């Protein structure tokens, strides 16, 4: 901001506003409009974040429990992968409406569908991670007198973290994308800014909402990578 006298500054603002209005009325891509109207995206963005994080967290808890059960009973891996595979294949949009007679409209329905979608990716990666633990590491753990439970929590799970996080990253990125459909389940999110009213032909709005979803996916991905780095300090010493 430099201090010129007031009139030219006002003039400038007016000119910018007018060009922006004409940009919008001609339905072009108007970055200035996105900046000025960003507040209309904050609530949908927050809903989107809520839907994604809740679904991935619940999905992780369920998949983790299933993986621990399958660790002792190996024959369960096949059936669990098969069942969660069916959930993964069902299109979310269909699941929203299949659930509608049971759970009604709203974020519960959206979260159930999105959670169901994450299960297979996360389950597979936890199982894979536990399988990839070197037998020597297990032997060393047993050698220092760890019980089976201690072996799991102190040796196997920490060593499986990179695989588990890889699964969470895929699940999270996909869920951000699918959560744009949550608007059809009446759960809001960024999809609302894409399809409600005549939004779908509003170029600037489509780019803004879609762009925010992509940015959200990348931001969550970076956070998960950071979590992995913090949880696996030994990997920083000797990059594999």
């Amino acid at each position: 901001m430099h201090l010129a006298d007031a009139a030219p500054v006002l003039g400038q603002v007016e000119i910018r506003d007018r060009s922006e209005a004409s940009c919008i009325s001609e339905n072009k891509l108007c970055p200035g409009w996105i900046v000025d109207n960003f507040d209309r995206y904050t609530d949908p963005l927050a809903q989107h974040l809520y839907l994604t994080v809740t679904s991935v967290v619940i999905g992780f808890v369920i998949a983790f429990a299933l993986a621990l059960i399958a660790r002792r009973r190996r024959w369960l891996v096949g059936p669990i992968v098969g069942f969660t595979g069916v959930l993964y294949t069902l299109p979310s949009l269909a699941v929203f409406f299949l659930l509608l007679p049971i759970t009604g409209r709203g974020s519960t329905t959206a979260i159930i569908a999105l959670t169901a979608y994450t299960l297979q990716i996360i389950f597979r990666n936890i199982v894979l991670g536990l399988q990839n633990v070197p037998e020597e590491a297990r032997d060393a753990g047993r050698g220092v007198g760890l019980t089976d439970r201690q072996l799991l929590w102190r040796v196997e799970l920490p060593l499986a973290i990179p695989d588990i996080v890889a699964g969470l990253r895929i699940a999270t990125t996909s869920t951000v994308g699918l959560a744009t459909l949550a608007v059809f389940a009446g759960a809001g999110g960024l999809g609302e800014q894409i399809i409600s009213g005549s939004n779908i032909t509003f170029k600037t709005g489509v780019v803004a909402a879609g762009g925010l979803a992509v940015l959200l996916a990348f931001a969550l991905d970076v956070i998960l990578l950071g979590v992995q780095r913090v949880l696996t300090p030994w990997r920083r010493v000797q990059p594999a």
Partner: protein
Amino acid sequence: MIEIAGVVSDFGDALDFIFSTREAQTGGVEVGGLSEVWEFTWEHLKVSFAAIGVACAIAVPVGLALGHAGKGELLAISLSNVGRAVPSLALIAFFVAYIGVGFTNVMLALVLLAIPPILTNTYVGVRQVDREVIDAGKGMGLRPHQVVQRIELPLALSSIFGGIRTSAVNVVATATIAPLAGVLTLGDYILSANVYGPDGRLAGAMLVAVLALTVELVFAAIQRAVEPRGLQTTT
């Protein structure tokens, strides 16, 4: 108990919508019934398979070339990560807003959606081929294009079809929102509930779910079938 009965009767009404026509909510025209269901299913399959076909024609040769040369790993791998981050709804909306509605535009949007998994899987499939097998082929006097045709492609085929399977399921799921762009797939039952009513919407959800599962099963079977017989014992 009443709730369960209500849910069951909702699904029963939806089945009824699939098998017999009725008057539209908006009045005048007949909707539902097997012939209309088949019409939408056919449109759904047409736009999906056109997209998968075009995506294969682009992604498989590129993936084979990159994999054979061992170049562009970053592109081949990160493409599918970036692809996952772009919401399919935003992709369709982008095409509607910037290019327009209609069959070709929806198909192109679906092509963009289908390319990354096929390209990545083709690349990874080729790179996974044992170097010694390739060296043995070269030792027998195979030329580079013969190495691709006779060794790398057959050995990567299962991985390639794995990618096609992922894309196919994804594309069929996304084709559900194609009515937003003027292509009347099965998704129209879901998206135009004001015409088809709640029974039609639930019927649409059931049909889309069954279609996606069928596509998954068919492509899983193809993936198993194309695996060279010598490799099939190792699952």
